[in-house]
Structure formats: C-alpha cells, structure tokens
C-alpha cells in the first residue's frame, strides 16, 4: 500500500520534472530565435528589478540586523565579538542574500506571474495570441525567464549590501562596536568567490522561480479557482526548489 503510494508519487514527480524540462526547452528555443520582443523583455525587467527592490531590501535589512544581534548573544560568551562582522558578511553573501531574495521574489513575482498567465490561459488569451500568429512561449515565457535569470543576481547583490549595512547599524549604534574596526573586519573577510557564488545561486533561483511561475500559469484549468490553486502551487513549488537547490549548489560550489 505505502510502497504503491510512494511509487506513484515518485512517478508523478518524474513526470512533472519531464514536463517542466520540456516547457523550458520550448521557451528557450522560441525565445532565442528572432524576432525579439524587446518591449516585453524590458517590461518584465522593470517588474522584476525595480518593483521587487523594496520588499527585498526590507527583508535584507531586518535579517542583517537580527543576525548581528543573535551572533552577539552567542559570541559574547566566548568573547569572540570580533568575528561578528565576518560571520554576517559570509552568511549574507553565501546563503541569506540569495535565499532570502529568491524566497521574496517567489512570493511576490512568481505568484503574480502564475496569476497573470493563468488568467490569460483560462480566458483564452493565450489561444488568442496563437491565432494572431504569436508564439506565446516567446511572448510570455521567455521574457520572464530571461529577465528573472539576469536580474535576480542583481537583487541578491543589493540584498547582500543592505543586509551587511543592517548588521553594521546594529553593531555600531546598538552594540557599540567601533565603527572603523567593524568596517575593517567586514572588508577583510570579503571574498570574491563568496559573493560570486551567491550571485550564481541567484541566477539559478531566478530561472527556477520564473520557469515555475509560467509553467504553473500554463497548467491552470477551470476558471478563477484553478488560477488560485496554480498560484499556490507555484509559490510552494518554487520555495521548495529554492531550498533544495540551495543545498545542492552549496555542496557543488564549495
């Protein structure tokens, strides 16, 4: 019984991975072929880059602050307070920057992508694109995947900077660290690879979020309720994928 269920779950999991792969190949193949829909691509870039900044920035700021406080609580027992700036630096650039930015973007952008495309699907707007001779993968999916992949690293970088700044604010103004020392410690522990690896993670997460957002939108069925369900699926699936891939990527990159 249980084995049967697990087996069936596993097969449906493999099937969805297969469908997702097919979907991404279709979209990329369509997107890289001219003509290019620059207007669409630019529009998405504004959506993803500009409108995500406030949410991403806020979470980074508070996470940086909270982490510094937590580290202080732990490290002061061993009089290791001096390690705080570098721990914040490493944690932000390698882990928290990419993961937090990705989770926020999945919740904000991935969801709205699914809702938008799902609505287009159930109201036959995607069919209308096709009958007006536009490849919907090229027009809808590719611009989102492309800009998501290219711009998430940018958001991650902003996230890193703001998170570290948050740590600095708490460290210097609340925990009374010496400002010059804090800054020096921060920069001394800065490593290019930490930052770059975080940006790579960001790109992968961006691809996954947008791919999943579009895929779930295309799979929407049966009216508003179906779109709602697809939206939930999209956020849950991309969040799980982000955390799963974060584990795998951390393993691969370090």
């Amino acid at each position, binding site marked *: 019984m249980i084995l049967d269920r697990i087996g069936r779950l596993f097969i449906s999991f493999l099937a969805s991975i297969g469908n997702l792969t097919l979907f991404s190949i279709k979209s990329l193949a369509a997107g890289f072929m001219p003509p290019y829909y620059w207007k669409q691509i630019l529009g998405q870039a504004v959506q993803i880059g500009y409108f995500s900044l406030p949410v991403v920035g806020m979470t980074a700021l508070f996470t940086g602050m909270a982490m510094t406080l937590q580290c202080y609580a732990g490290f002061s027992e061993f009089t290791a307070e001096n390690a705080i700036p570098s721990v914040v630096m490493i944690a932000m650039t390698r882990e928290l920057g990419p993961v937090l930015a990705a989770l926020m973007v999945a919740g904000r952008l991935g969801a709205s992508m699914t809702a938008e495309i799902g609505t287009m699907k159930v109201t036959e707007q995607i069919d*209308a694109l096709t009958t*007006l001779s536009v490849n919907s993968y090229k027009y809808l999916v590719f611009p989102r995947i492309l800009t998501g992949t290219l711009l998430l690293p940018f958001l991650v970088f902003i996230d890193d900077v703001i998170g570290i700044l948050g740590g600095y604010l708490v460290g210097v103004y609340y925990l009374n660290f010496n400002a010059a020392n804090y800054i020096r410690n921060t920069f001394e522990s800065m490593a290019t690879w930490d930052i770059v690896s975080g940006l790579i993670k960001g790109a992968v997460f961006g691809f996954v979020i947008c791919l999943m957002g579009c895929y779930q939108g295309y799979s929407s069925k049966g009216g508003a309720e179906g779109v709602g369900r697809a939206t939930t699926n999209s956020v849950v699936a991309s969040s799980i994928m982000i955390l799963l891939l974060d584990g795998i990527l951390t393993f691969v990159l370090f």
Partner: protein
Amino acid sequence: MEYVIEVENLKKSFGNKEVLRGISLKIKAGESYVVIGGSGSGKSVLIKCILGLIEPDGGIIKINGKDTSKMSQKELFKARLKCGVLYQGGALFDSLNVIDNVSFGLIYGYGMSQKEAYKIAIEKLESVDLDESVAKIYPAELSGGMSKRVALARAIATDPSIIFFDEPTTGLDPITSGTINDLIVRCTKEMGISAVSITHDINSLKHISDRVGLLFNGSFIWEGTNKELMSTDNPYVVQFINGNAKGPFTEK
C-alpha cells in the same frame, strides 16, 4: 466545389472521456456554418482542433485545401492569420488597450509599422460601429457589448478568409445580441468571409446561419440548411430549438 475547411473523421478524447467521435465537416467559401449543441458537447473543442490549438487524436483537417498536420510551424502561423477568431469571453489582452488589441495581429503577424496598423485598426473599429474615442481604453473598462465589438474588430483586422465565432451573443442582452448578429452578418456576407459559429441563441442561429449542424454525443446527429432547420421533425432538433425539457437529449 472549393472548400475553405474540410474535416474528416476528427477524434478527440480527454483522458477516457470521448469528446469528439469522428466528426466530418465541409465548409464552402462564403458559407456561414453554425454548430449547435448542449453545453460541454465539444463545440469549442471542435474549433480549437481546426485551429490547431488542441491536438486531435485522429482525423484530417484541411484549411484552404491544405492539410494542417503537414504544415510547418511557420505555415501554420500564417494560415492562422487568415482565420479570425472571436473567443467565447472575447479574450482581449488585459494588458493592452483597445487599439493595441485590434492592431496586434497586424503588427506581430504582418510586421506592419505601428502607424500603419493603427490606421487599419481604426477603420476596423469603425466597421463595428466604434470609433477612435475608445482607442486608449483598457478591456476591463469596456461593457460586455463593447468588448465583443472590439474582439470582433480584432478578429477581422487581419482580413481573414474564415472567421470562427464561439458563442458571440452569450451573456449579452437581447438588443445587444441583435446588433452583434447584424455585425456578424455584415462581416461575413458583405465581406464574403466564411464563418463557423457556435451558438445556443436560436434567434442568432436563424439570423446568421446558412447551414447548421447539431452536435450530440461527439458527432453531428443532424445537418441541414437554415430552412430545413425550421421545418425538420427530427426530434433532437425540435427539442433543441424549442428548449423542451423532455426529449431525446435528456433521455438516458
């Protein structure tokens, strides 16, 4: 005789639910063919198969004499530009205003400049009794009748040789329905465009059809001309036209 659309033995199932069980259909140039049938009988699926939006399980579909399954992707997209579609809910693009909706196929399909396309789009809007004043309005702000008109203008913008109407008057009041019917007749008869329509609206049916097919249980159980429709004693047709609760439709 030249046929714009030929469908032979078309089959389509979803899962184990057989929706179309071997449909054959021929539509002559300039003819207005209307498909009637109960909700969920597969009328929309039929036209989506013809348009290549749904892949059929079997059968042959020819548009203007060409087998669509043998067309390349490019040819298929080109053939589709010659097919205008008025979707059930209008399917106007929410993110674009009226003029961008109407000129969409001209710009993306025919590669026209925006200026050229807008000029034609305004002509098309005028031919459905709208004018420039609606050009910048977004679909969400249009009334039901207006959005049907805009959708119709978009459908005829690319100068199609065939138009598909999926329940063009469903959800409209009788008067607005009447004007949409008139527009359909104008677009088809005066411009000589062939039409395949789906409707539940008997009034509309009398108005716009040359020939009618009644879809039931996955195939046409009756086909005939507009005149024959009114005089036939086929129990299915009689029940459908009169809207009787009792009859062969509702029997198990």
